[in-house]
C-alpha cells in the first residue's frame, strides 16, 4: 500500500513556496469506502474546484496473494483460485488458465469441450458486460438499467448453475477439457437465452443510446487515443473504442474461435460513449458466436486424456485470451514438479486502470466516476 506521504509528494502538495493565493487546490480522498469506485479502489484526487488536476490510484485493499498461493498448490488445485480474480467473468479466467496449462502439458482439449468452452465464455462475456452496463449507468445516475441488466443476467447465471452448480465462481473448466458433460436441454436453454436477450439489449439501448443526458455525460469524456492505449498496454473494449481493431479471438484464435464468423466492433473517438457502443455491439457479436457454436456443437468426448499427476516439463509459457475486460494472460514457469514455480497473471483491469489518470486530467469529478465505470475494472483482478 502506498504511504500517504509519498502520495502527497507525487502530487506536488508539499511545495513550501506556495503562497496563500495558490491554495485553491483541494485533495479529495475517494474510497476505499465509496459507492462508485466498484469495490475497494481508492483514488486520491487533486482538485481545483470541481476540475481534476491529477489523481492517483491506491490499490491493494483486496490483495489476497493469488499468485503466491499458486506456488504452493498443484496445477489442478490452483484452478478454482483463478475464478476469484475477476469474479464477474470467472469462466474466462478459468479458460485462460486451463489453456495455459494445457499448452505447457502439450495436451489438446477435444473439440466438443472447446465448443462448450466458447459457449460458456461468451455467455460470461455478456453477463460481465451487463453488469458493467448496469453499474456504469448507475454511476452516471440512471438507476433503472441496473435492474434490467441484472434481471437478464440472471438467466445466464441459471445456465451456469445448471451446468456446474455454481453461479458466480463457476470453476467450469478443467485442465484438458470440461469435467461435466452438458446437461440435458443445455442447447435448448442456450438457444432460448439468445432469443430472449437480443431484444433486451435493444431495450437497454432504447433507455440510453439516444438519451440526451446520457450522451452529454459520455461524449468526449475520458478520451484516450489509440497511441496512448498502446503505450499503456490498455486492451479490450477500451482499446477497440479508440479505433484499434485488436481482438485476441481473431488475432490469435484459441479454443474454437477460429471456426466462427463474427466481427470486431470498433469506435473512433475513444470516449466513454464509444466504449459504451463497442460493448453493446460486443454483446450482440457474442450472441452471434453462441448461436453458431450451439448450432454446430460436435459430438465426442468432453475431456482429453490427462495424467492423474500433472508434471509439466521444465519450461515457461505465456498464454493470453480475450477476457471481457481485455487481454488476460497467464505466464507459468514450471520446474518440472507438480506445483508451478511461478505464475504471473496479466490482468486486464490492472493494466487498464493505469490509464485513469491520463483520462481524467482536466475533467470534472463527475467524469472521474464515469471513467472508472467505463474502464470496467474489477478490484479482485486488480489486486489479485
Amino acid at each position, binding site marked *: 500500500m502506498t504511504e500517504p506521504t509519498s502520495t502527497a509528494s507525487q502530487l506536488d502538495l508539499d511545495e513550501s513556496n506556495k503562497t496563500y493565493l495558490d491554495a485553491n487546490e*483541494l485533495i*479529495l*480522498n475517494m474510497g476505499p469506502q*465509496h*459507492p*462508485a469506485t466498484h469495490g475497494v479502489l481508492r483514488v486520491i484526487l487533486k482538485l481545483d474546484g*470541481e476540475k481534476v488536476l491529477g489523481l492517483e490510484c491506491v490499490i491493494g485493499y483486496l490483495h489476497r496473494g493469488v499468485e503466491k498461493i499458486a506456488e504452493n498448490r498443484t496445477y489442478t488445485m490452483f484452478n478454482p483460485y483463478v475464478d476469484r480474480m475477476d469474479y464477474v467473468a470467472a469462466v474466462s479466467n478459468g479458460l485462460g488458465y486451463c489453456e495455459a496449462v494445457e499448452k505447457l502439458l502439450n495436451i489438446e482439449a477435444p473439440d466438443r469441450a472447446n465448443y462448450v468452452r466458447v459457449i460458456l465464455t461468451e455467455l460470461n462475456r455478456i453477463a460481465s458486460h451487463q453488469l458493467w452496463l448496469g453499474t456504469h*449507468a*448507475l*454511476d*452516471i*445516475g*440512471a*438507476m*433503472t438499467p*441496473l*435492474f*434490467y441488466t441484472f*434481471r437478464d443476467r440472471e438467466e445466464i447465471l441459471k445456465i451456469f448453475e445448471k451446468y456446474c452448480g455454481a453461479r458466480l465462481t463457476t470453476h467450469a473448466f478443467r485442465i484438458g477439457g470440461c469435467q461435466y458433460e452438458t446437461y440435458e436441454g443445455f442447447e435448448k436453454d442456450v438457444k432460448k437465452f439468445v432469443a430472449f436477450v437480443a431484444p433486451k439489449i435493444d431495450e437497454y439501448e432504447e*433507455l*440510453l443510446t439516444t*438519451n440526451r*443526458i*446520457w450522451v*452529454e*455525460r459520455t461524449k468526449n469524456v475520458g478520451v484516450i487515443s489509440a497511441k496512448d492505449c498502446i503505450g499503456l498496454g490498455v486492451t479490450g473494449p477500451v482499446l477497440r473504442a479508440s479505433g484499434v481493431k485488436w481482438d485476441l479471438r481473431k488475432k490469435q484464435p484459441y479454443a474454437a474461435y477460429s471456426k466462427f464468423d463474427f466481427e470486431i466492433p470498433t469506435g473512433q473517438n475513444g470516449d466513454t460513449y464509444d466504449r459504451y457502443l463497442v460493448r453493446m455491439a460486443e454483446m450482440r457479436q457474442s450472441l452471434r458466436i453462441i448461436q453458431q457454436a450451439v448450432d454446430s456443437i460436435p459430438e465426442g468426448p468432453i475431456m482429453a486424456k490427462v495424467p492423474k499427476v500433472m508434471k509439466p516439463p521444465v519450461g515457461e509459457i505465456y498464454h493470453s485470451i480475450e477476457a471481457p475486460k481485455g487481454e488476460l494472460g497467464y505466464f507459468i514457469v514450471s520446474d518440472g514438479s507438480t506445483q508451478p514455480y511461478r505464475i504471473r497473471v496479466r490482468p486486464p483491469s490492472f493494466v487498464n486502470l493505469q490509464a485513469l489518470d491520463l483520462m481524467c486530467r482536466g475533467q*470534472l*469529478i*463527475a*467524469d472521474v*466516476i464515469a471513467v472508472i465505470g467505463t474502464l470496467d475494472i474489477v478490484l479482485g483482478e486488480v489486486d489479485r
Partner: protein
Amino acid sequence: MPSFITDYLQKAGQTTPGQYGSPFWALVYILLVFAGVSLAVVCMNWLERKILAHMQVRLGPMRVGPHGLLQPIADALKLILKEDIIPEGADTFVFWLAPMIILLAVFSVYCVVPFGPAHAITDMNIGILFMLGVSSLGVLGIVMAGWASNSHYPLIGALRSSAQMVSYEVAMGLAVVSAVMMTSLDADGTGTLSMIGIVEAQYAQHTWFIFKFFPLGLIAFFIFAVAMVAETNRAPFDLPEAESELTAGFHTEYSGLRWSLFMLGEYAAMIAVSSIAVTLWLGGWMRPFPNLLNGPTWDLAFSLFPALTFFGLAALTFYSTARMPKHSYFRIQTFGLGAFGAVFVLIGVILLLPAVRGRIQDVYWFILKIAVFMYLYIWYRGTFPRYRFDQLMKVGWKILLPMGIGVLMLTGLAGLRTEVWHFTVRSAGEVWDVFRQLVHI
C-alpha cells in the same frame, strides 16, 4: 364558546383566518397544514419506493405490513432511535442549526399556499414573492450543513447546491413573472401577486394560465417545471447529493433524526414548489372547467369526485386483499390490508356527507394536481441519468434563462395585442401597399 372561536366560524368559507385576523384559527390551520404535509411526506416516501420499484422490475418494500405499508413508520422509528452523531471537528451549533433552517424555510412557504379560496393560513398581497423568497432561504441551510460538517464531500455538495439553486431561481423568477403579468389582463386591469388572487384571475379569464397565449403559458410552465426540479435537488439535477460522486452530498455527515429532517425538508419542498406551479398555471384549487360546466348538476357531479377517489382506492385495496396468499402466515397482513381498505371506505363515506363535500372539494382538486407533479418527480428519477455540473449550469443559464426572457417579452407583447396587433397589421398593410406600388412602377 368564546367569541374568538365562533366569530371566524360565521365567516368561514369566505376568507382566510390570516386576513380575518383570528390567531386561534390561524394556529389551527397551521397545525392542520403541518400535519397534512408531514403525512403527505410519509405517503410520498412509500409511494416513491413502490412506484420506482415497479418501474425497475422489482417489488419494493413488502415485509413491514401488507405491501410494505408500514415501512415509512418503521423507517421513522429507526431514524429516531439511531445514534445522533456529530462528527469531530464539526461546528456543533451550525451543524445543529442547518436542518432547522431548511425546515423553517420550507414550512414557512405553506403560509400562503391556497388550498381553496378560504383554505389558506393567510393571503398576502405579495404572496408569490413571499413564497419564492422564503423557499430560497433553504439554500442557506444547505450551505451551513455543508460547511459545518467539516468534511470535503459535504462542502463540495453544498457549493454545488448553492450555485445550482441560485442559478435556477433566476429562470424560475422570470417564468413566474410572466404568469403574474397575465393576471393584469383581468377586466379591472390590475394585476396581483396574491396567491388567491392569481387563481381567481384564472377563473375570471376563463382559462388556466398554462393555456393562455398558447404556447407562451406552456413554455413558461415548462421553464418553471424544469427549474423546480433543480430547485429541490431532485433527479436529474440531484448533483448536490449525487451518491455516486459525493456519497450523499451536503448531508453525508448527518445521521438519524437530523438526516430525516433533511429528507422531510426535501419532500416538503417538492410539494411546496409543486403547489406554486399548480397555483400559477394549473388553476389552483379550481376543478376542471368551472365556467363551462357550472350549474347545480355539475356541482353535484364534481363534488362526488373525492369520495369516488377513495372508493376507487378502497376497491384497489380489496382487490389486493383478495389476491393475498391464502397461507396462514399472511393472515394478519391480509386482515390489515382489508382494514386499510375499510378505512378508505370510511373516509369515502365521510367525504360523501353534504357538509364535508362542499368544503373539501377545493382541497381535493389542489392535492390531485400536486399528486401529478409528485408522480412526475418519481418518473424523472426512474428515467434520467444525472447531469454533470457544467451541463447543469449550461441548461440553467444558456437555455432556460433566454427562454424565460423571451417568454416574458412575448407575454408582454401578447398582453398588449389589442392595440399593438391592430397597429402592426395596419402598418404592415400600408407598407405592403407602398411596396406593391413601387414594384409596379
